[in-house]
């Protein structure tokens, strides 16, 4: 795993008592980069802001995964596919900002019933 070579190198990793950060946090420097690139006029970012995001992204991934998995099992499948993620996004209000990302206009709309038939 590349984990050891990423931003974790500055923190205690694995075992031990997480003095500063939970070792499973998402890399803070990467988060900060993404924040900066979100808009041309992002100037300064406090040290704590990426930290909040690291936990928030964890919660976000958990929620999106949970909802996607619900779509998967509705389709009586065991593999989460992109279509499940797209469906989860489409059925969750707070995920509206993701609609274009998961379901670009150029791609065809997947009919989940059709998908079910193919898989069975």
């Amino acid at each position, binding site marked *: 795993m*590349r*984990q050891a*070579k*990423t931003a974790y190198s*500055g923190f205690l990793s694995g075992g031990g*008592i*997480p*003095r*500063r950060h*939970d070792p*499973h946090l*998402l*890399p803070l*420097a*990467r988060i*900060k*980069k*993404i*924040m*900066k*690139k*979100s*808009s*041309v*006029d*992002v*100037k*300064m970012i*406090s*040290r*704590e*802001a990426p*930290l*909040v*995001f690291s*936990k*928030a*992204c964890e*919660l*976000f*991934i958990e929620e*999106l*995964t*949970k909802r*996607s*998995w619900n779509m998967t099992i509705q389709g009586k499948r*065991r*593999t*989460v596919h*992109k279509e*499940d*993620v797209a469906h989860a996004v489409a059925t969750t209000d*707070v995920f509206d*900002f*993701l609609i*274009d*990302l*998961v379901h*670009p206009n*150029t791609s065809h709309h997947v009919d989940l019933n059709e998908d079910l038939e193919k898989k069975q």
Partner: protein
Amino acid sequence: MERGGGFHGYHRHPIHPTSGMQQQDMKQKQPETTNNASTDDNECIVREQDRFMPIANVIRIMRKILPPHAKISDDAKETIQECVSEYISFVTGEANDRCQREQRKTITAEDVLWAMSKLGFDDYIEPLTVYLHRYREFDGGERGSIRGEPLVKRAVAGSDPGPFGMGPFVPGFHMGHHHNGFFGPGSIAGFFKDPSSATGPTGFEPYAQCKE
């Protein structure tokens, strides 16, 4: 072919002109830094891996949620990886707008939390506030040591593997209904109030009273 425009136009290009450079960039070359004005915005080459969270981390978090027999397709992993970046961008944009309205230069943790609440991620606020408070207790945060009373003791009763061990996502707090009363000290509840009632010209500092 571009994959989605997204809110802030992140794209994953199938053929990357600097693919040769990606190999040497396996390490995170930028160490943890404190506040600094961005000086690398002139970088015209955006390495794909810099725009997303490492896929291994994303997968690990997904696996925490999924039952052991579940499988994840590669396109689902990549999609969620892209969604995370979009989420960061989306919330940061809102937080940044607020800073600009209040003529502040630094996006703070409070700005991020405020933006999340505004954008509908109310359920995240409470666990994030607890997390942030613990970070400040143990690490001093960005304002020095804070020795306030524990903010939300009951939130973690019986499940405390470590200073930041949140364990599973804390359920059942009905976040949406208890904005003001829930956090106890008014300084935190004030977090959700109109910015015009913020303390001082520098803006909103709900933890200010806990400084000394």
